[in-house]
């Protein structure tokens, strides 16, 4: 049947245009898959940061007397360790604190009254409330900072990047479908005599639309798969480079196997959408003929 099987599909061979469709699909899918990979990586990094910071508290004890300050820190650590859901609580050693502050205070910060700092990691974010209460019971003047609060702008930024990637994917999809509409218009013009002949032989609009759907879908799938594969290879190589930076934030933006599956499904999804758009464009155009 026309539009089904390789013999019927050959009817639209010979007038060219397929290579252009494949090239456009390759270019748009390269950009789309790369944008999607960036978006997914940003989402993963954001989720990782959120997950890690959601279970962390920083507790400061400000006291001019270093002995009282250290005693208070020890009491807080002891109290926190008794709270269910607290995975780890430790007083940050003074040397480590000085190391942290050295970029701002210089090497001679040893004499300054630096607050004691207690780091808390929660196995369950729901333990934050009891941990906060326990810390305040042990040291009523303690200042408790959920680390998620000061990392919130970073998290928002990462979500913004993911959203932007989503917009790029949508724009690329729109561009692909517009290119398909143009390609179909050109294809109908190139194949005008063949289309007219098939009509006179009794071909229905649906049969002709099926022919174009198959042709456009095939070209879009070939081009899109090549572009998508190139983008996935690029994303994989870039992912390796970012992981090599050792950054907790950037290195956490790797792609899961589910993410790779989503990326791999983009070219066939786009090809399917292109084929459907082609079919609709052909039907709309043929509806204006006898």
């Amino acid at each position, binding site marked *: 049947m026309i539009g089904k099987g390789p013999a019927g599909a050959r009817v639209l061979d010979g007038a060219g245009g397929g290579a252009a469709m494949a090239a456009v699909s390759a270019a748009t899918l390269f950009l789309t898959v790369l944008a999607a990979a960036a978006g997914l990586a940003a989402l993963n990094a954001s989720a990782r940061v959120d997950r890690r910071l959601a279970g962390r508290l920083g507790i400061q004890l400000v006291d001019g007397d270093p002995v009282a300050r250290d005693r208070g820190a020890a009491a807080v650590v002891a109290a926190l360790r008794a709270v269910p859901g607290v995975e780890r609580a430790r007083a940050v050693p003074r040397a480590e604190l000085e190391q942290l502050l050295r970029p701002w205070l210089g090497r001679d910060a040893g004499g300054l009254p630096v607050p004691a700092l207690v780091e808390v990691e929660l196995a369950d974010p729901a333990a934050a409330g009891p941990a906060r209460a326990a810390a305040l019971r042990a040291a009523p003047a303690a200042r408790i900072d959920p680390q998620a609060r000061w990392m919130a702008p970073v998290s928002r930024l990462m979500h913004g990047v993911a959203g932007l990637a989503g917009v790029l994917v949508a724009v690329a999809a729109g561009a692909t479908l517009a290119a398909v509409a143009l390609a179909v218009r050109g294809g109908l013009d190139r194949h005008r005599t063949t289309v007219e002949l*098939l009509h006179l032989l009794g071909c229905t609009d649906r049969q002709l639309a099926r022919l174009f759907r198959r042709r456009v879908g095939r070209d879009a799938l070939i081009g899109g798969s090549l572009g998508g594969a190139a983008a996935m290879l690029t994303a994989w190589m870039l992912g390796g480079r970012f992981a090599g930076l050792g950054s907790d934030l950037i290195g956490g933006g790797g792609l899961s196997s589910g993410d790779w599956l989503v990326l791999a499904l983009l070219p066939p999804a786009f090809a399917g959408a292109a084929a459907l758009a082609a079919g609709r464009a052909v039907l709309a155009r043929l509806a204006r003929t006898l």
Partner: protein
Amino acid sequence: MIDPGAVVQFENVGLRYGEAGAASPPGEVLSDVSFALPAGAFRFLIGASGAGKTSLLRLLFLARRPNRGVIRLFGEDAVTLPRARLPALRRRIGVVFQDFRLVEHLSAGDNVALPLRVAGLGEAEIARSVTEMLGWVGLADRADARPATLSGGEQQRVAIARAVAARPELLVADEPTGNVDPDMAERLIQLFDALNRGGTTVVVATHDLHLLRRVPQARVMRLERGRLVDPAHPLATTAA
């Protein structure tokens, strides 16, 4: 008046292309054309260039609708028939175009197979029919040849094989012998004659009056400046 036995019936049909034309009424290339073709009829359509032969054939094979009048094909009103129902009607009509209209990138066999594929036949049945049709027109050994490698006569025979491959009830041919030598023209007319004797209604537009006597059962329809002046003239009285 509806003739229930007619495969084709035209009543006061008028056709106008845009605003051009010098026929009467002003602008019409076909005016008040009325005739009926019973099943199994053979008609030669003759007339000078520009008389409206091709226009009449285009109405017959549903490439256009008339501006006025009634056209009934196989009992259906082809003027008001919904567009979606035209393909089914077209599949009952075989067309041999003046310019062949072979698809250049398809082989002779694939060209002949087109109406069969449109009709949704299986590949085995298509292959059998194509072999039979190409053998019938004497081109069994050229099934894989592209049209560009075929002579004018061979291309015309491929076009005829394509037109009859789906066993149409009505065969319409526009100057089918216009591009071939006299011997080939005679062979082609013999093909149409054989088809007609098998029950197919045949309408052949031609300039070549010598061919008319090759089909004794045929009658002649003569068009003059868009008007059918003789809807079923017996061949015995037609100049050849």
